[in-house]
Structures are given as structure tokens and as C-alpha cells.
């Protein structure tokens, strides 16, 4: 099965190790991974900040780049959410019906990493070993937009050596929210403070999630507070052996 990696702009620029881990993991599981280099960004930031018009060309580009793959996998619930829940609507509002169909076709075959592993690959044990105490933060877009449910937790449970601890008030937003973190920085920081307090209360050494964006936010807060808890993307844990 030819799988395209939808790397997402944030991972490409800031967290290449998350992309590398995703590639290693998928290759280890026997997939032929391709990274179409003409991909750039899904346009979510533009859409969610009110610049839908600027997002439409990015939707077109995305639909074009990823047409024809069996499966498209991304290590980000948020970006998959954008592809699945925004792209076709953006295309429809721009009045381009061909684009709407193309975007919908790509969306149908786009998976967030844990969805792909559990639903397409069909196994929760991916042969990982990670001897650390870990707590999992379900990001809003994985929880409520994609409804990945307990898939990430099942994957984490199957990792050898991993000690999984529950995060209190796990389903509450960490306060990232894209440009919300800048436009409403004070509220965002207040939400972050509660989230980092929850993380610290678990005694975990690692906080993981399915979105590098939220982890950048949580990790930024932990780092500023001088906490030793590290933020590690789910893909990195599942890739490690």
C-alpha cells in the first residue's frame, strides 16, 4: 500500500523528528511511504483566523498534491480535521464544484496517525518500547473533531515498558487554539497554567499528544516554568524501540 505522508507545515519546520518518527514507524510496519514535496500547508491557520479566501488556493494545492494516493497519513489531528471538516466546505463556498469533489476525495483517504494504525493497519501493538512514565493529553481536535476516542490510549497501552498515567481533566483544552494563543494570550495562558498543573500532578516524565501544535504550547509553558517534564509526540513514542 502506497502511503503518502502529509507532514504538516509545523512538523516540517519545527519538529522534523516527529516526521522522521512517523516515517520510521510506517516503514517498520511495511508501508511504502512517499512524501510529496509539493505539499506545503492545509491552510487551517488562514481559515481559522478569518482568511478563508487565502486558504482556498492552499486547499487546491493540497487536493492536487495528494490526489491518487491510497492513504494519506498525518501526525496531526488538527490538520486532518482541517482537511476533513473544512476543505470541501471552503471549496464549496468558493463556488468551485470540481475542487469540492477533489477535496472531498482526498479527505476521505486522509487519516490521523492513530486512526491509520488502528483502523487501516489494524493493530494496536506496533512493536514499540519506551520505558518512561507517560501521560496523554487528548487534543481537542482528536477528541471532538476526529473522535479518535481511545485509539491513542490503546496504542500507548501496548508499548512495552511504558507506564501510562491518567491526566486529570484531560478533555479540557490546553489553550492553544492557533492564533487564539496570540490574540487572547492572557486567557490562553490561564488555560495553559491549569493544563501544566494537571500534567505536573501526574508525576509523569513525558506528556504526549497527537498534535505538535498543542505540545509546543504545553511544552513552552512547562519549559518556561522550569519543569523537567518533556513533551513528546505520540509518533515518537510509537517509533521508538
Amino acid at each position, binding site marked *: 500500500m502506497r502511503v503518502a505522508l502529509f507532514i504538516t507545515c509545523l*512538523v*516540517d*519546520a*519545527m*519538529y*522534523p*523528528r516527529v*516526521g*522522521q518518527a512517523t*516515517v520510521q514507524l510506517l516503514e517498520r510496519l511495511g508501508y511504502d511511504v512517499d*512524501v510529496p*514535496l509539493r*505539499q*506545503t500547508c492545509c*491552510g487551517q*491557520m*488562514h*481559515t*481559522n*483566523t*478569518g*482568511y*478563508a*479566501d*487565502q*486558504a482556498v*488556493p*492552499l486547499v487546491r494545492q493540497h487536493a492536487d498534491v495528494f490526489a491518487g494516493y491510497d492513504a494519506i497519513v498525518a501526525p496531526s489531528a488538527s490538520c486532518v480535521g482541517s482537511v476533513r*471538516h*473544512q476543505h470541501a466546505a471552503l471549496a464549496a463556498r468558493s463556488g468551485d464544484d470540481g475542487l469540492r469533489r477533489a477535496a472531498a476525495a482526498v479527505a476521505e483517504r486522509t487519516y490521523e496517525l492513530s486512526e491509520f494504525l488502528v483502523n487501516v493497519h489494524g493493530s494496536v501493538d506496533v512493536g514499540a518500547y519506551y520505558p518512561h512514565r507517560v501521560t496523554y493529553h487528548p487534543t*481537542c481536535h482528536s*477528541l*471532538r*473533531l476526529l473522535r479518535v476516542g481511545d485509539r491513542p490510549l490503546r496504542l500507548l497501552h501496548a508499548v512495552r515498558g511504558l507506564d501510562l498515567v491518567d491526566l486529570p481533566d484531560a*478533555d*479540557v*483544552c490546553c489553550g492553544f*487554539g*492557533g*492564533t*487564539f*494563543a*496570540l*490574540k*487572547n*494570550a*492572557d*486567557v*490562553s*495562558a*490561564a*488555560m*495553559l497554567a491549569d493544563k501544566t498543573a494537571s500534567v505536573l500532578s501526574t508525576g509523569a516524565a513525558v506528556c504526549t499528544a497527537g498534535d505538535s501544535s498543542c505540545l*509546543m*504550547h504545553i*511544552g*513552552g*509553558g512547562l*519549559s*518556561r516554568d522550569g519543569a523537567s517534564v518533556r513533551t513528546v509526540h505520540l509518533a515518537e513514542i510509537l517509533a521508538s524501540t
Partner: protein
Amino acid sequence: MTAFLGMPARAPRGVGQLRGDLPFPAAAREALGNAQLRSNLGRATATIRAKRAAVVDEVPDWAGLRAAGAAIKDAVLADLGSHLIRLEEQVVAHGGRVHWARDANEANRIVTDLVRATGERDVVKVKSMTTQEIGLNEALAEAGISAWETDLAELIVQLADDRPSHILVPAIHRNRTEIRDIFRREMGRVGVPAPPHLSEDPHELAEAARLHLRARFLTARVAISGANFAVAETGTLAVVESEGNGRMCLTLPETLITVMGIEKVVPTWRDLEVYLQLLPRSSTGERMNPYTSMWTGVHPGDGPLEFHLVLLDNGRSATLADPHGRAALRCIRCSACLNVCPVYERVGGHAYGSVYPGPIGAVLSPQLTGAKDNPSLPFASSLCGACYDVCPVAIDIPTMLVHLRSEVVAASGPKPERAAMAGVSWVMRRPRLYTVALRLSRVARLFGRRGAIRRLPPPLSAWTRTRDLPLPPAETFRDWWVRTHGSP
């Protein structure tokens, strides 16, 4: 040519309470500084969230009720005019009178004239966000008429000369000690004083409110209410409440004036079987609220001799005109979305500047006033989606917020941001340029200290005030891919 064919008619400025004095981020900053407020809100919203979850979970057909609740409202909105005409016919047929108000000013004028015609200078009021929306109390005061709020929470708010902060629990920002102090200080000034040794026990506080208001109820001759539902088919009005002050207002006075947004109409009597299950469980987390009153026009020998229904537009038809925004008019004001909202929980209702706070306020207020008058509200959300999950009429608030953001940008987008967004989009459409741009981000490594960036210039300083930013990596993902997996 007529006015309605031009710009959609929004709620007018200078009257009522749909616009704040400060943009949301500034108002929120003030609220965040109030530790008392935050702890009250945190405790209250956590309690009510848990209660709601418990009573919703015990309903096996909740999803079906929710789908019906959304569809019934959509059916009304798809043909609102016919439903209103039907409602009017039925109310009139049963001895009521119906008045139409294009906006807040007109509604205030209608109600003021109706009260004046009775010769009364005092009216009792029950639970009505709509009358707060239009600033009715202030309008009545200008005409020399005192409007007395009778919900316990509204009474607290009115006595403290404060503003409500929650749809359902307007005094959620006050704790028992503050309430006792307000009662002791203010009750005697306007009527029956608080008992001399009033403690902060909620039972005693409720008793004080009972005594204070009873004298008023027994002598009131005019009452003003809102309505939760109005049935087009039969002309039946419904008010849902807990304390009994609603029943007092709806049955004891001779004249009853009900002010209702035009979106509150439902098609048939049967439809109430849906909302009377959805509303109490979503709002107070009860299986049913203590009292629901229903009346149809005037009932000889039972209740008011005169009934007036004021149908209010005030920006609702303009909201209806937007196919991407009109679902906000489904809202039954249960406040479930407020209680689950992590933003609302931390800043409270006042920061939203409008009588409608929280997630629904962030979409409804800008729609009623036009996005230009409330440009910061659609951004007052992290788009976490908790509101959509709990909404009993399935309003997709996050998607609507995103839609309104684009309206705000279209109306008034800040110029540097617009240029930046256009620039980024332009680069992102050009993969080669984009690859180069990503490499250039490595420059930021120069700003770093000890593996992280701790200070950036505005506007990114908003990030680094409370958060570190990791250093960009030495090699982007795509460069690694090309290096390890072959040709570009």
C-alpha cells in the same frame, strides 16, 4: 424602495446590552485578575457540568431528541413568517394582543406605552434575557416606571447595581458572603429590609428574598416576562423556571406583557415534548425544572385580564439572512455551552460585553449587531469544540465562529495581519519558495538561549510572555527526507 432590501437590519447602537466597552482580550484580562470571580466560576461551572452530564447520560434517546430539537428549529427558521402569523392569529383568537417591534427602541416604546396605559409606576419582572438585550429596565426608568426583578439572582444583580454574568445563574460571580452583604445593605433601601441577623446560609438568604418580594407580588398589577417557547399552532406560551417568581408574575397581576424574540416560536404543541426534555437537563442539570407555566391568551377567571405579546426582531432577521449563521437562532438559552467552555470558565460573562456571554454569545452578539460592532468576540474561543458537543440543539458553534471571523476580517481586518496572511499564503502556494522559506526560519536559532527562544518582538511577544518557543531545527523535515530518501 424599502429599507429591508438594503443592509440587513441589525440591533441599533445606543440602546440595550449587546456591545461591550472593551474588546474581549482587554476585558478578559481584567476578569482574569479577579481571583474571587475565577474561583466562584470554576466551582459553579464544575458543579453544573457534572449535574448535566449525569442527567443527560440517563436519557437513552438523547441523540434522537437532540436531532429533533435542531430540526424543529430549522423548520421554523425555514418559514419563520408563516409561523409568526399563525402564532399571532392564535394569541389574538384567545384574547391576547400581539405587537411587533423592529428593534430595541421600538420594543421599549411599546412596553412603556402599555405600562403607562395602566397608570402603574411599578412592574414586576421575571427572567428575561430579551428585555436585558433591549435595555427595557432603563427605558422604563426614563419614563418614571420602576421595574423590579424577581429571580433571586436577578434581584441580587439589581440590588448590587451589577450586571448578570451567566444566562442561567446571573449571579454566578457572587458568593454567599457577598450576597448577604448586598441584601443587608440594599434591601431596605427599596422595600422590605433584610432580617436583622441575616447570615450567609443560602436558606436564610432565600428566605430574605421571599419576604422582600412577597409584598411586591401581592400588590403588583403589571408584570413583564420573556418566554421560552411559543407554539404557533395553538398560541400557547411557556415559561420555564425554578423559584415560583415566574408563576407569581404570570398569574397574579392584571396585565401581563411578554417580550419574545421572533425565533422562539415552535410549530406545534407536540414539539414541546422535545424541548421540555432537552432544556431542563441541559441547563440546570435537573430532570425537570420545578415550575413550567403555560398559557394561551387570556384565561377567564384565572390569571391576567390582559395579555400582550411583543415580538422582537432586533437583528434576528439579519441573522436569519446568513445561511452560515442562522443556526444560532436555534438556541434555547440553556447555557450548557457556557458551563463547558474553558474560556468562559476563566473570564466569566462580563468580558463578553453582551447579555449573551460564552460560546453562544460569541456568535450571537456579533450577528445581532453586525460583525463590525463586536469584532473581537468571534476570536474569543480556542475552537475546542466542547460547546458543540453539549448543545441540545446541535449548533456547530466552532464552525460558526470561524465563519464570523472571516466576516470580521472582510469588514475591518487589521492591515498588517492581512498583509502577513496574504504573504504566507502566497509563499505556501509556491513549494520551491516555501522550501527556501522553511530553511530561512533557522535564522531564528540566533534568538535562542539554552535551547529555547524566550523573547520575541511583537506580535509574537504575546507567545513568549508566558511560553518558550523551541529553536527551529538545524534541518527541516523535507531536507532530511531528500537527504535520506532520494531526489527532490
